[in-house]
């Protein structure tokens, strides 16, 4: 028991220290921003940090930013889920057959470099102005990086591990689900992370172009309308919200998922 009392606090303390250093850096950045904005003294071009925080707090208090963020996130999660399902189907097919592998290689080579926003005109033609168009472009933004990373993970699987798995005489589906996917998890997680960032970017960019509709627009729409009304502090508050959501998802979701899986299993340091 004596051991436990000594070793237990060690990890939280280290984490706390790392967070502390980042906190100081953030404070310095905020101070630089505040100082430069005061020096510039032009709230239309660059509001001060304190004004931005005030706008952020007010945006959340009034519920407007919360509603806008919720709208964006709802679209994001829908598109992300569609992209994942498509990526899973495509990579499973690629893992099981030569034809599937060639198809995946061809499609990713063709479509991965295509910016999702470039598909927006087509999406508008097919689905009209509204949520389905946004979901379509987000799906495109998520599908290729996730499929590419997962497939790379399948291919990077050590030959010995593959043979050890085959040795048990598993059915193809079991082999994919119980050997291939866990073995490729480091790359799959990296792909999910990348897909999330792409989806978020695509959504905001698409919303800036046309929003969902004026009344129920997301956070991109919030930024767009506030710029038009010269409420620059609100524009910055919108940007900060995007950053905050990104940070929360990164630390709470992806980092803890990695800690609970691939880091615990020694597949990733």
């Amino acid at each position, binding site marked *: 028991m004596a051991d436990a009392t000594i070793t237990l606090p060690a990890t939280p303390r280290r984490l706390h220290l790392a967070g502390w250093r980042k906190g100081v850096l953030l404070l310095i950045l905020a101070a630089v921003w505040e100082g430069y904005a005061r020096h510039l003294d032009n709230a239309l071009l660059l509001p001060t940090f304190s004004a931005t925080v005030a706008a952020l707090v007010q945006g959340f208090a009034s519920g407007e930013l919360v509603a806008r963020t919720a709208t964006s996130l709802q679209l994001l999660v829908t598109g992300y889920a569609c992209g994942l399902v498509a990526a899973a189907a495509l990579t499973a097919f690629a893992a099981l057959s030569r034809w599937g592998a060639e198809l995946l290689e061809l499609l990713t080579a063709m479509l991965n470099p295509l910016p999702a926003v470039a598909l927006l005109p087509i999406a508008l033609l097919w689905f009209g102005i509204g949520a389905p168009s946004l979901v379509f472009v987000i799906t495109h933004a998520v599908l290729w990086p996730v499929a590419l990373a997962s497939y790379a993970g399948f291919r990077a699987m050590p030959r010995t591990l593959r043979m*050890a798995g085959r040795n048990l005489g598993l059915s193809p589906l079991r082999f994919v689900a119980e050997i291939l996917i866990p073995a490729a998890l480091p790359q799959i997680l990296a792909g999910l992370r990348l897909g999330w960032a792409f989806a978020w970017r695509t959504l905001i960019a698409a919303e800036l172009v046309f929003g969902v509709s004026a009344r129920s627009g997301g956070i991109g729409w919030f930024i767009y309308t506030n710029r038009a009304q010269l409420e620059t502090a609100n524009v910055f508050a919108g940007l900060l919200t995007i950053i905050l959501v990104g940070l929360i998802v990164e630390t709470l979701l992806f980092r803890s998922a990695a800690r609970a899986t691939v880091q*615990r299993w020694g597949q990733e340091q």
Partner: protein
Amino acid sequence: MNTTTGAVALRITDTEPLLSLENVTLRYGQGPTAVTAVEGVSVHLTAGDRLVLLGPSGCGKSSLLRAVGGFQPVDAGTIRLRGSPVGKPGPDRMAVFQEFDQLLPWRTVLGNVRYALQRGRGLDRATADARARDWIGRVGLARVMDAHPHTLSGGMKQRVAIARAFALEPDLLLMDEPFAALDALTRRQMQDELLSLCEQTGATVLFVTHAIDEAVRVGTHVLTLSPHPGRMKGLAAIPPAARQRGTAAFAQLEAALQAGLLGEDNSAAEERRHG
């Protein structure tokens, strides 16, 4: 010693051989660039035999083992297990490889063995759990039952792989230089432990190595192969008395095998030069 013609049985028995290789030829690649890895290997194993395939790199010993495991196609000849040709890899032929990454990193020591028993033997979780615990204990790893493989040393990982292979009670154990990446002391200890497990269970083993002392220690028979392409060179039985390290019989057999391997190399090179 036998020559390359005709099938060689390790023992003369009335019973059907457990594993029989008839004129097995393995190639890599196709067309004019194809390389023959193994040519015309014929040998029969009876249950309880431990045949060591011994030879320098390039003699196709690992290819032969992989072909028996079903991991590699046979280009000519047949490989039969209990009379039927071997197909895809299966739990009736459990393999232990040299590399340390043959365990599933996301499962614990117990999880690895239990999973293999559930999937390979179709056991329910409780039965598989009990049998896995028993075998992990028999290789001396009871205290790391719940550890993940990346926290173990190389020797411990190989022990888990050996426990997993034995636990499935396969018809045939395939061991592809399982101790080659270990330090000398651990290697010796593992050879002794493997020998005692084999003697306890009466397992039939196909064991690949390039270390002569290892061949003498773990095998009941040694099949020496010459390289490029791998051809059968000689078959020697290892009398139980010679299996003891440090004895005169052990040293004698080791020296004889070494002389045989080196001699064949020279004469083969000579043949090529003149032929």
